[in-house]
């Protein structure tokens, strides 16, 4: 994104200063209701995930006119995020004056406040001070109720309709605590975007044993590892495993965190053979070492490549690219 374009883009396009986008806007006090919650239970066990556009989507977002939050059913978060992105990324098709919504004062004031909080959080993230702050913190100053790594443990603010996966999640956490180790599970939560896919964060040193139990234990039975992804959150690195039990159709998401300086996650090639190349790819692009991997070499890049491109702090060889 060449510099001068950004200036031109930012200059004429937006009048007011745009705060760092707080995706949910200031008032996310009510976490968007588990939109797929209620009808979930009725679903046949064979196909739990409900396609996103199932009718139970209560309120289709009105693009330009939604200043207020309607009562119970939260509109789509995007609808209230009318605030354009901050200076770094002027909204792609943000016409300057075309559909200026009447901003209520209270809305403006809330947004300014969110901007300040966001900026503070951003500084904190860069400083890396917030060791304990999970990925959520880096996402800006919105309330902690949101999403995967909510600081308040699993679902402290229980959504009005407990989702059917909740008991499964608790059962899983309890089983893992029993079989693997007391502190095996750091966090457990439901991913609201993914039809409440239970997400467990497991400590690195217990991960091989946990993987074993996840595959062999009759209650879990996750014999199919469908995806292994590496993610570089500025504060820490994360390896995300998506597991699937073909008979019951459940999918779980398991995360293992590691620090940034010498990231290492025990390899699970002995448990699921499909992890072999996927771990090599993560090692190649993100630099996370996988002790226990039979043949950990670079898979995508030439062997003499320096650095790991997918890291956020990766300096490309020639910046022109």
């Amino acid at each position, binding site marked *: 994104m060449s510099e001068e374009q950004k200036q031109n883009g930012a200059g004429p396009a937006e009048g007011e200063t745009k705060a760092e986008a707080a*995706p949910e806007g200031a008032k996310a006090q009510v976490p968007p209701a588990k939109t797929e919650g209620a009808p979930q239970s009725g679903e046949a066990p064979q196909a739990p995930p409900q396609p*996103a556009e199932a009718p139970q989507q209560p309120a*289709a977002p009105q693009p330009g006119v939604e200043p207020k939050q309607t009562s119970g059913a939260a509109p789509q978060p*995007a609808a209230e995020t009318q605030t354009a992105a901050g200076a770094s990324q002027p909204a792609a098709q943000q016409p300057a004056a075309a559909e200026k919504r009447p901003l209520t004062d209270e809305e403006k004031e809330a947004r300014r406040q969110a901007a300040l909080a966001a900026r503070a959080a951003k500084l904190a993230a860069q400083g890396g001070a917030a060791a304990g702050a999970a990925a959520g913190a880096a996402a800006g100053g919105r309330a902690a109720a949101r*999403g995967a790594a909510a600081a308040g443990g699993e679902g402290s603010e229980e959504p009005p309709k407990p989702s059917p996966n909740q008991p499964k999640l608790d059962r899983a956490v309890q089983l893992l605590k029993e079989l693997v180790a007391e502190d095996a599970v750091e966090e457990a939560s439901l*991913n609201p975007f*993914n039809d409440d896919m239970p997400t467990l964060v497991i400590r690195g040193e217990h991960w091989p044993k946990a993987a074993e139990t996840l595959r062999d234990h009759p209650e879990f039975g996750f014999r199919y590892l469908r995806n292994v992804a590496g*993610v*570089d959150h500025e504060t820490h690195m994360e390896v*995300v495993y998506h597991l699937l039990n073909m008979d019951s159709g459940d999918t779980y998401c398991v995360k293992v965190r590691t620090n940034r300086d010498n990231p290492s996650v025990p390899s699970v090639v002995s448990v699921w053979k499909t992890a072999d190349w996927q771990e090599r790819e993560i090692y190649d692009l993100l630099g996370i070492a996988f002790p226990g991997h039979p043949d950990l070499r670079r898979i995508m890049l030439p062997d003499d490549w320096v650095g790991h491109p997918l890291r956020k702090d990766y300096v490309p060889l020639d910046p022109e690219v």
Partner: protein
Amino acid sequence: MIRTEELLLNVGPQHPSTHGVLRVVVKLDGEIITHVEPVIGYLHRGTEKLAESLNYTQIIPYTDRMDYLSAMTNNYVLCYAVEKMMGIEVPERAEFLRLIVMELQRIASHLVWWGTYLLDIGALSPFLFAFNDRERILQLFNELCGARLTYNYMRVGGVKWDAPEGWIDKVKAFVKDMKSRLDEYHNLVSGNEIFLARVKGIGAYDAETAIQYGLSGANLRCTGVKWDLRKNEPYCIYDRFDFDIPVGQNGDCYDRYYVRTEEIRQSLRILEQALEQFPPEGETMGKVPRAIRPPAGEVYVRIESPRGEIGCYIVSKGKAEPYRLKFRRPSFVNLQILPKLLVGESMTNLVTILGGIDIVLGEVDC
């Protein structure tokens, strides 16, 4: 005493039957393969790194180039992921258009596989038969979205173009013709004793190994595991149509051939039903906010591409660009079983087995 030495042979990256720039380093003892080591990365374009500085509409043309034989399913998986995060409702007509286009893409992709697979085994004509029919699908796509291979057709929240008038009838005509063409294909090849001798019992593995190696698509179903995301985890409007999932028994190259040719027939069935229930008019674009910014959080979405389960894992921090975008590419995962299948086989079987797994290097290297 005769001293025999193993012949180290580089099959690829520039080789007529590696379906792209795959290099397989093979140690040969005479014609028998003793050691195999696939080397990939020749087509690595760093799509995932690029995506971190592009907003969602800009990433769509990049997904066309990942699995260039089924660009529609790649487009769909990205749009579906963003729609799931933002909870956007896709209108009825757009859903139907998406389904029709994806099933046409599945047929086109299987036709390419069928043609090149037979060419690898030595028969010259099937390749031309397949491409002759695939040309009709490419014409349909060209009329619909302006391109033959890199369609860039779907947008978050719907599809960009509505079907031009007369297009639906052309698709109906194509589906009707394709049925008879398919029988002709079976006459030409499926009964041929030489073909059967070349394919039966080659590169066989059982269901347990398939699940261990995380295979998906026809490579999984050929071992008898009945797992197809269109049925087991329905997305789009697949749950409105009835079609069955072809399944093989003993997981050898012939079963993969049978499953894929049967899948073409099933796709034709879906297309017929979809064309009948096609809503005459309606919106093709849902309510999408001006700037697409999915809320902070992550989602892993997966659909059934012609090569298997293609997944899209997005971690978003609320900005217009994804914080981290990872594609679970079926060809990349399916290729892992190649070394296990090849040891002990002959050179000719290397080509047959590699063709049977049906990989596309654009997707393997992403």
